[in-house]
């Protein structure tokens, strides 16, 4: 009896091989293979506010963008530096409270509060996270988990920064179109910026810190420093999101430290495809609208995402973007052994 054995083989598509380096300029077909996905993404995002049916949904876009910034920071930290950040709410809260204070107590307008809150917030967040950077990854996860929970309780107990009521009366964006396009531009900026960063030399150092930090030490570089830089970059994105959020909702309070901001970026990254950065943004575009639709169910939403997240992880699913990229760049066929 002769049994035939087959195995699956995965090969790069011809057009992918033809578009390496300068050869991509060979013809329109090759050029479009590379540029069409990116153009679709950019155009799609820019056109989104125009096709939204109502103001409510336009606001949702802004919120999606804030979550997208957080998801980008999570994906970057987790898959390119090896640090799992369980507390996106920490960045949102820091940026948010800072912007609120700058606006209400110092009277600065939004175009000043946002940049200042972003940078100063990033410095503060990095400072808070500094003690756990020389240590193993699980400590970073623990500390980022704890900060939003503990800080929320401290604010409530000591009744500082507005206590449970929060800081009210924050100025809003003058114009809803400005609000949305600013957010979309920020997301696009950071998305393409981060993709560029991780392929630059600095990005390679970050990835080296994730893969093999002993070798990085042996090459004469301080991993604590580079982790701090990575955390600073990630906190910039998170604090920017937080600062914008308070101007959108005109209020800053303990719910800024809420769990939504911690779990949705993680779920978005896992569902969208970890490690691709685009996947994280895409995941947000999927999850956040669903979250809005399910708002009537209260915190059951969080149960829902958490369980889906666990499902994806346990089944070792690669995520939407990773699957999509694979299909786009490679094809499979059965080969006789």
């Amino acid at each position, binding site marked *: 009896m002769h049994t035939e054995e087959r195995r699956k083989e995965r090969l790069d598509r011809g057009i992918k091989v033809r578009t390496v380096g300068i050869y991509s300029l060979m013809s329109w077909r090759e050029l479009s293979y590379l540029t069409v996905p990116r153009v679709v993404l950019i155009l799609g995002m820019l056109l989104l506010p125009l096709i939204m049916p109502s103001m409510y949904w336009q606001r949702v876009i802004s919120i999606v963008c804030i979550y997208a910034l957080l998801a980008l920071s999570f994906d970057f930290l987790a898959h390119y530096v090896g640090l799992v950040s369980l507390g996106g709410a920490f960045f949102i809260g820091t940026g948010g409270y800072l912007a609120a204070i700058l606006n209400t107590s110092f009277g600065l307008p939004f175009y000043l509060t946002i940049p200042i809150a972003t940078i100063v917030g990033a410095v503060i967040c990095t400072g808070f996270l500094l003690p756990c950077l020389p240590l193993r990854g699980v400590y970073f996860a623990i500390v980022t988990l704890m900060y939003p929970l503990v800080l929320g309780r401290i604010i409530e107990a000591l009744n500082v920064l507005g206590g449970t009521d929060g800081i009210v009366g924050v100025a809003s964006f003058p114009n809803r179109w400005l609000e949305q396009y600013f957010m979309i531009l920020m997301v696009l900026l950071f998305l393409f910026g981060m993709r560029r960063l991780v392929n630059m*030399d*600095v990005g*390679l*150092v970050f*990835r*080296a810190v994730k*893969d*093999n930090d*002993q*070798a*990085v*030490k*042996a*090459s*004469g*570089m*301080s*991993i604590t420093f580079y982790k701090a830089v990575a955390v600073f970059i990630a906190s910039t994105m998170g604090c920017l999101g937080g600062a914008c959020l308070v101007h959108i909702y005109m209020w800053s309070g303990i719910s800024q430290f809420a769990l939504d901001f911690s779990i949705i970026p993680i779920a978005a990254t896992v569902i969208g495809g970890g490690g691709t950065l685009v996947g994280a943004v895409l995941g947000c575009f999927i999850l956040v609208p669903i979250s809005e639709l399910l708002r009537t169910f209260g915190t059951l939403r969080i149960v829902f995402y958490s369980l889906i997240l666990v499902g994806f992880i346990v089944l070792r699913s690669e995520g939407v973007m990773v699957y999509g990229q694979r299909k786009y760049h490679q094809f499979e066929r059965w080969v006789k052994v």
Partner: protein
Amino acid sequence: MSGGPILEAKEVTKAFGGILALNRVSFHVNEGDILGIIGPNGSGKTTLINCVTGFIRMTSGRVLFRGKEITRRPPHKIADMGITRTFQIMRPYYSLPAYKNLVIPLFSPRAKRTGGWRGGGKLGDRDTVGIDILEEIGFERDSFVPYKMASSLPTGYLKRLELARCLALKPEIILCDEVFSGLSMSEIASMVPLIERLQMEGITLVMIEHRLRELFRVANRVMVLNFGEKLTEGTPEEVMADEKVKVAYFGSEEVEEVMSYA
């Protein structure tokens, strides 16, 4: 060829809980020399390297580099001073191609300071410099080898990659942890001239080895460790003639074999 002591270790002691891995080990290397460290498995050779290069905090003892105390410095500061090391369990960046592996050490402050790979004083594009270094170390430039993923390279190339990583830092001294192990005869045959060339360029080497035949061809002095203590030190011939060393290796055939070739 040899100058004064470039690296000195005094009374290095390391205890892991109740186990004394190193017991007051002292040694020194003269500039431009090659010092071999040999000993049976578990004698503390890798621990000694880890202590000297700052990867493990020693229980007591001192380490001096060109007379300056470097005892409690963190490993990246020590590497920054020009004291580099390879790892016994190889640690390339598996997900990157071979030449990209060198981008990381070339990004370090020391590489930026010492530079000079191309056009004197200024570091060229790191990718190109990486390929240059790989060519020096024995990767064929015009083949696809430097572009292969580190995960698909054979052991001989990976060992060379480890050395390349050290060379990117323009080191003053390299502490090699078993570079010859795991290599085939032909791979070793091409490694030995490389080691000799490194010495000719003025780099001091400390080599932990099990393959005594090849080590004795290049080493000026050899030190023997056993159960964390220094047994003896001297030229390869002196060490091989020492009865204590033979006893430590329990009269292993390797010693007999080397004796017949030396």
